[in-house]
């Protein structure tokens, strides 16, 4: 029956694997660059040789290294969960922000800043992180309840529930902003803009212990996420328990985004832009898309944070502003391109 020549484009063809390798190499270079640049001058050569003054060593171990690592982890977490969300909703415009995880986290943080009394001890330092994390998780549980009530686990219901939750928590945060005094207002605003300025080793460890397992789990779901793109019913016909898969992916995403938002505040558009770039250049297969997004997301945030903390040194820009400045126009360009494509332009 098949007289024609066969070509074998397996999903893991050579050049795609090379692309992953290239991204890893670039990430490594970005990490090296990031640890050698900062307000305190530490030449790369002395880092590589390991000859540092006491002051340089202190800067390196207690400030710069945790910060660079944290930006890499958060970048990877945001990009991977963005990519997973997009497959889940079969919508390239989906983003952890869309289903309300980020705004739920922001509301919880606003509640702690404006309403909760001052906390003491370890709690004081981590109260905002804890709030952000639990806000994200509670939002997820709410969305579950809403979508569960409709009987079927439909992406449309989830998207609508996400919009409703975004609106309500946005309004509630707005109301708290209205109630807040000068001090609280500033705390709230700067938290929303996202920054890695607060990076400490405990934050790195906590974030890594949540993000790494959840990300690896998402990698395992990659093939079934591809199948899910055919539709819930078709995926079931192909042996994929769509409902269970969707639930597991949501939980993993909530965990990763919650952990990321908890340590860095809201950093927008990474989850949207990074998977798109990978799809455009390497392809949409989740088995490549997810790891490649993790690498590029880490690369992007390590780079962006290095810019954020050096460009106006000794002051620094909130990194969320930088990513949104780049991500916003990119998003618009994407919309215009899609529209043009649909109109045959």
């Amino acid at each position: 029956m098949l007289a024609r020549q066969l070509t074998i484009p397996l999903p893991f063809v050579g050049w795609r694997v090379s692309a992953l390798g290239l991204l890893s190499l670039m990430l490594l270079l970005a990490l090296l660059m990031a640890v050698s640049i900062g307000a305190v001058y530490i030449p790369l050569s002395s880092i590589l040789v390991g000859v540092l003054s006491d002051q340089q060593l202190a800067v390196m171990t207690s400030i710069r290294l945790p910060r660079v690592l944290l930006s890499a982890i958060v970048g990877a977490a945001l990009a991977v969960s963005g990519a997973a969300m997009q497959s889940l909703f079969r919508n390239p415009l989906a983003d952890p922000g869309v289903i309300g995880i980020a705004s739920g986290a922001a509301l919880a943080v606003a509640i702690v800043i404006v309403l909760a009394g001052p906390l003491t001890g370890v709690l004081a330092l981590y109260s905002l992180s804890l709030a952000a994390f639990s806000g994200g998780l509670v939002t997820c549980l709410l969305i579950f309840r809403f979508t569960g009530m409709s009987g079927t686990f439909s992406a449309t219901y989830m998207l609508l529930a996400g919009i409703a939750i975004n609106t309500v928590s946005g309004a509630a945060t707005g109301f708290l902003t209205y109630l807040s005094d000068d001090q609280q207002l500033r705390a709230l605003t700067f938290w929303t803009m996202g920054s890695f300025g607060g990076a400490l080793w405990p934050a790195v460890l906590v974030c890594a212990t949540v993000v790494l397992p959840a990300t690896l789990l998402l990698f395992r779901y990659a093939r079934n996420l591809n199948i899910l793109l055919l539709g819930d019913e078709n995926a079931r016909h192909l042996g994929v328990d769509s409902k269970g898969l969707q639930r597991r992916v949501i939980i993993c995403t909530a965990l990763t985004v919650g952990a990321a938002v908890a340590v860095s505040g809201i950093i927008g558009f990474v989850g949207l832009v990074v998977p798109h770039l990978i799809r455009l250049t390497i392809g949409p297969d989740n088995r490549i898309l997810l790891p490649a997004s993790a690498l590029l997301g880490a690369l992007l945030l390590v780079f962006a944070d290095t810019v954020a903390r050096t460009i106006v040194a000794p002051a620094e820009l909130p990194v969320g502003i930088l990513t949104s400045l780049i991500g916003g126009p990119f998003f618009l360009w994407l919309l215009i391109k899609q529209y043009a494509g649909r109109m045959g332009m």
Partner: protein
Amino acid sequence: MTPIRIIILSLAGLLWANTATAAPQRVVAIGGALTEIIYALGAQEVLVGNDTTSYYPPAAEDLPKVGYQRALSAEGILSLAPDLVILSDEAGPPAVLEQLSSAGVSILKVKAGRSLSDVKSTIQTIAQAIDTQAINPGQSAALIDHINAQTLALEDAIAQQASPKRVLFVLQHSGGAPMVAGKNTSADSIIALSGAHNVVTAYSGYKPLTPEAVMALHPEIILVTSQGLEQAGSAAAIFKIPGLALTPASKTGGVIAMDALLLLGFGPRTAQAAQQLNQRYQEF
């Protein structure tokens, strides 16, 4: 006060009474320092309202509040039927001020203070506008004399110091890099006034300071508002902010907290605040 000066002042008073309408009877003060000045002048009986930043002296808390000074609403103010609204150039939004004037309310706008001479001229302007001479004669002059005396004592203390302390003012910290006062801020002014040196000279205004720079600037004392300290939890929590742990201040536990209005308000207690700061620097 010499008889001649009394005559001149009374003439000035007459002139004021002639050119302006009668002294205002219902005054709304917007801004903590301005409210404080009116109390210090003993003219609080004309006050019918103030804003949320007016919390000193404690009696000021009991007056009706017209909201936050940067987000005023015209109707709230008009409902108090004021014949004079005193506010600083920080108050707004501008459209609301416009609405107030078109509703026929007189507005006295004074410069937000950054120095003791600003404070003294604001005291005089307010004293004149609400005619405190009629209510509490001589009080404005006495207040200014008091401030001058405090200033002299402060200058003496500073002159006897060896070298100025290196101070870092942390406005607040909410997870990211700490917000720190640069030049042209009221924190910068009060640090200078108290005979110390603000370590941040590279930029103006309040900006997040990158943690590495916090360390590199070697601050000996971390200055915070008590409100900011309360939000952080404790002085120990302040040193958990990245970079601060590596400063000289961390070794001596050098944190000084002071009420925001007292520290940054540039009102009648500013000379006193600077004196207090100067004394507390010696602890570290």
